[in-house]
């Protein structure tokens, strides 16, 4: 399982890549593994407002529906519009081709609440043990 060092992670298993004031958001390798084969994804449109810890989209595996939560607040500036046509990309390349949205952050301080790779790895291991 991969935990790229350059990313920040939420407790709901989203990742964030930050470049200046823009946050690129997706779901983690652990999240896609837990969900299993992903067969459907619903994303917001450009211009939509997202709020930290509130759902901005949905992924569905064969068995279950899961909300995707915004790790930061802001305005959606770009959406991976090809993703709904090939949701399996989320299983195959969660940190790369399966990025979901880019958000212009309204409060970059929110990044402080996110975990670093080593912290997230530990968080996942604890979650696994509870299974």
């Amino acid at each position: 399982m991969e935990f790229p060092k350059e990313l920040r992670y939420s407790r709901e298993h989203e990742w964030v890549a930050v470049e200046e004031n823009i946050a690129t958001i997706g779901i983690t390798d652990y999240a896609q593994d837990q969900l299993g084969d992903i067969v459907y994804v619903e994303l917001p449109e450009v211009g939509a407002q997202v709020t930290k810890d509130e759902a901005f989209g949905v992924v569905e595996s064969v068995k279950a529906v899961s909300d995707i939560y915004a790790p930061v607040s802001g305005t959606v500036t770009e959406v991976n519009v090809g993703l709904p046509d090939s949701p399996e990309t989320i299983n195959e390349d969660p940190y790369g081709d399966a990025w979901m949205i880019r958000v212009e952050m309204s409060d970059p301080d929110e990044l402080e609440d996110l975990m670093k790779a080593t912290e997230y790895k530990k968080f996942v291991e604890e979650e696994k043990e509870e299974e």
Partner: protein
Amino acid sequence: MKRTPLYDTHRSLGARMIEFGGWEMPVQYQGGILAEHQAVRTRAGLFDLSHMGEVEVTGPGALEVCQELLVTDIARMRLWQAQYSVLCYPSGGIVDDIIVYRMAEDHYFFCVNAANIDKDFDWMLSHNHGRAEVRNRSDEYVLVALQGPLAQMILQRLTALDLSQVRRYWSAVGEVAGVSALVARTGYTGEDGFELFVPAHQGTEVWNACLDAGRNGGMVPVGLGARDTLRLEAGYLLYGNDIDAQTTPLEAGLQRLVRFDKDMFLGREALLQQQASGVSKQLIGIKMDEPGIPRHGYPLGRDGNTIGHVTSGTQSPTLGAGIALGYVPPDSAAIGTILTVEIRSRQARARVVDRPFYHKG
């Protein structure tokens, strides 16, 4: 939670476990649900169904008792024949859907749903009135299903029985991998295949022998996740979702099973009455016209009004579209009727289609 004798085997194969009907069962192995689904459609898959129950009715009164319990006419069955049937309450609601095997004139073997074992056994006992011996033998069997176009070829490597002589919905007794088994040509996948009832303590042996025999044919172990997508594509009902005590066989599209020409069976009066007055809801198959996955409980609409609900739904791996079963009033049940499925407060377009959704190629 209960575990089947194959629990450790599943874990060693990398299975992910879930709760199902009080049992801890594999939902998928390492390849994932879609790969397992595809393996069964194109090659073969191996399933542990040991959570399902086995109830036996024997003795001079066995036929009479079974005739009262089931809506089908089992007097017409030949020895070793299998039949899909339902047990009904006097109300016409369904106690369970089962497969019954006729093992002898006075010996009937019921394969029942895992979550219904105790309920069915109590129900059967309470209507026995001392005429037959009714025994719950669920703990004595491991049930392994080998399903898919290569099933016969693979299983033939393990048995001296001539499987080409065992037709669909028939069974035979013989040895599989040296273990005495009831070999039934039945299944819940829409593919050819077999279900093997073997003594519980020899279940692991048979499972491993099947897996070995199928390995170079591309057979894989298959969990409940793919079992559900396979059965839905094939249009099979799931008790607790698509049928229950509040639905009758006439509503569920099972009228072909109901033999009103039998003198007496539980539910006969209510079903006769319903047949005369007409049903108020009817099971339909639905295919999505738009992206979106219909799921259990989602409202079904027509012209802006809610007219029913989805009872089972999934993204069909074979069709690449959402499919579902659900109930609507008969005037909305015609093939081609345009409906909506409410998915997270969006009205997504769907249509009523013929079942099964998938026919084996």
